[in-house]
């Protein structure tokens, strides 16, 4: 786990390991990466997150050396890496398909890169054994890739890409082929290994939960651009755009117009005949500016009576209940027809649930719970 002091991106003296400087990549007439600049620091676990086709894999392939930028430069430890072929880069990649050599044993797969460096035999053997221990594969060293399970194959791929002790390890959807349970377990293993080896990891994923779990910082991408780069908690709590708020986790969005009320408080008029909503924001908005108020379902309280001291309260009817075991998500329909999701922890037995379908309830939240976003 990252310690709170590990924040090189806030340190003006820190030299980034990787710098993207105004990088553009085009494939024919299609622009995969659009004038993008980004710094990634040593020992970071950096996640590139976005829907498929957003350019995150292209970023990774440019770092690995399989693609060259059309414009701009990419620096690794201060050196422009354009034109350096993949086999001469201190960068290794773990492929989505794992790309294990089917004709070689697990041992030989891991040793493959070390042997290319013409390292002495004993050194290769020692390093392979170390990698096998790190990934707990000692008992499978002499099996072929088709003789082991999916999770083990994933660990072989990781061991192989770490064997050469790269400055930078690229992971392309490393857990895409694993089932949910194994995936969770593997995420923690991956963080453990990252911490033990001190390698900088850049992971590409479309799974926001995975990015939130493993990464020190997340870059949310869309259509070849960075939408927001921040720590997981800031991405979740303080999204800078509707896109990010909507992409990460569940969110309720109220569309309306703001009126500043001073001291960082804003009034949001959002529906005819409804009392305005109140929200706090450090940002400034012009009076009458179109905006969205984004509020996470777990920050919305649900009650039978209108809470007396609530900053915001709206009334609605329970349209649907998603029972997830530990949580219940109430889909509440407002008179305007909008559905608002409210999440509660199921601390009591389901038989004692207070609300059921078609009940009229109050939803309430504080002024600071929501995030005010410009349209």
């Amino acid at each position, binding site marked *: 786990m990252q310690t709170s002091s590990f924040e090189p991106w806030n340190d003006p003296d820190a030299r980034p390991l990787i710098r993207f400087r105004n990088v553009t990549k085009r494939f024919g007439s299609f622009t995969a990466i659009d004038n993008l600049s980004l710094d990634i620091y040593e020992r970071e676990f950096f996640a590139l997150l976005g829907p498929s086709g957003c350019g995150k894999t292209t970023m990774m392939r440019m770092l*690995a050396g*399989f693609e060259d930028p059309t414009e701009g430069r990419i620096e690794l430890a201060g050196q422009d890496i354009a034109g350096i072929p*993949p*086999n001469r880069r201190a960068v290794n990649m773990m492929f*989505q398909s794992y*790309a294990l050599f089917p*004709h070689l044993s697990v041992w030989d797969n891991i040793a493959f890169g070390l042997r*290319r460096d013409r390292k002495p035999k004993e050194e290769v053997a020692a390093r392979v054994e170390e990698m096998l221990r790190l990934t707990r594969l000692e008992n499978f060293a002499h099996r072929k890739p*088709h003789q082991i399970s999916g999770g083990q194959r994933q660990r072989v791929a990781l061991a192989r890409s770490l064997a*050469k002790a790269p400055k930078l390890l690229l992971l392309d959807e490393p857990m895409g082929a694993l089932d949910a349970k194994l995936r969770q377990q593997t995420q923690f293993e991956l963080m453990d290994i990252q911490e033990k080896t001190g390698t900088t990891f850049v992971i590409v994923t479309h799974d926001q939960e995975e990015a939130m779990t493993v990464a020190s910082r997340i870059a949310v991408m869309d259509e070849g651009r960075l939408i927001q780069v921040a720590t997981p908690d800031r991405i979740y709590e303080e999204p800078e755009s509707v896109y990010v708020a909507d992409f990460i986790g569940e969110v309720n969005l109220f569309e309306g117009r703001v009126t500043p009320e001073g001291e960082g408080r804003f009034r949001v008029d959002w529906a005819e005949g409804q009392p305005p909503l109140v929200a706090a924001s450090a940002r400034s908005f012009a009076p009458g500016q179109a905006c969205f108020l984004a509020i996470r379902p777990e920050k919305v309280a649900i009650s039978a009576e209108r809470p007396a001291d609530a900053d915001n309260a709206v009334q609605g009817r329970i349209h649907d209940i998603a029972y997830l075991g530990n949580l219940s998500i109430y889909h509440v329909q407002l008179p305007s027809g909008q559905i608002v999701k409210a999440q509660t922890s199921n601390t009591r037995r389901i038989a004692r649930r207070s609300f059921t379908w078609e009940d009229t309830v109050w939803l309430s939240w504080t002024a600071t719970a929501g995030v005010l976003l410009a349209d």
Partner: protein
Amino acid sequence: MRRVILIAVPYLWLLALFLVPFVIVLKISLSDAAISIPPYTPTLDLSAGWQGIRDFLAALDFENFVWLTQDDLYWKAYLSSLWIALASTAMTLLAGYPIAYGMARAPEEWRPTLMMLVILPFWTSFLIRVYSWMGILSQEGVLNQFLLWLGVIDRPLMILNTNTAVYIGIVYTYLPFMILPIYAALDRMDNSLIEAAEDLGCSRLTAFWLVTVPLSKNGIIAGCFLVFIPALGEFVIPSLLGGSRTLMIGKVLWEEFFSNRDWPVASAVAVVLLLILVVPIVLFQRNQERQQEAEK
């Protein structure tokens, strides 16, 4: 019952079309040549009963096989056939691998067309294609005319009726049998394996040697057997394109049978050829089985 029928059909097929003919050939190879119809003795006379069968068996002997070892024509022909088959298999591999590789690397939409081009020659008769090579390779042929016109040579080259023409014929005829299995192996290969090899420090060339070649090994082996086995007993190509000095066992067999009308010796030649071929066929089968194991 249904299973018995299902299994019986292929076995009956093999029995009628392989085993029975083989037994007949084996029997003839143990007989003696004779000026009669059929041109060998003894023939089985079942009307004589048990005694007839005993007389028949007593008349069979290994004389013809002994003869094969006494006249150096035969073992020289076997050796020469083996050599020609091996050399032309190697040449077919050298020509076929780059073609298969190019096909597997070609853009997706081109591949069916390229595949079609490889298979296209099968649409005309093999014999006609070999004859057309005579037209190309002869001294007045297209190739010589072209080279003379270019000024590369000042006298027509003697290609037809030499071993060179036999090699050209075999490589040309069997090239698709080499290309197709190698292409199948390369086509299945995941391109990220090459990228992974490069990522781990291989140059393009070492990635090819360490990944592409081993992974197409089964295709190479299958292709080599598919060329080697029929090339060993090849008869049409050496007799049409080869010269009087081209010595191949298929041709010897044909001459024993039709020119000499010595059916027993011809049969003995055929039986020995079959025994020689059993070795690569068994190896080929084993390769196929291993490949299927690996794919499970």
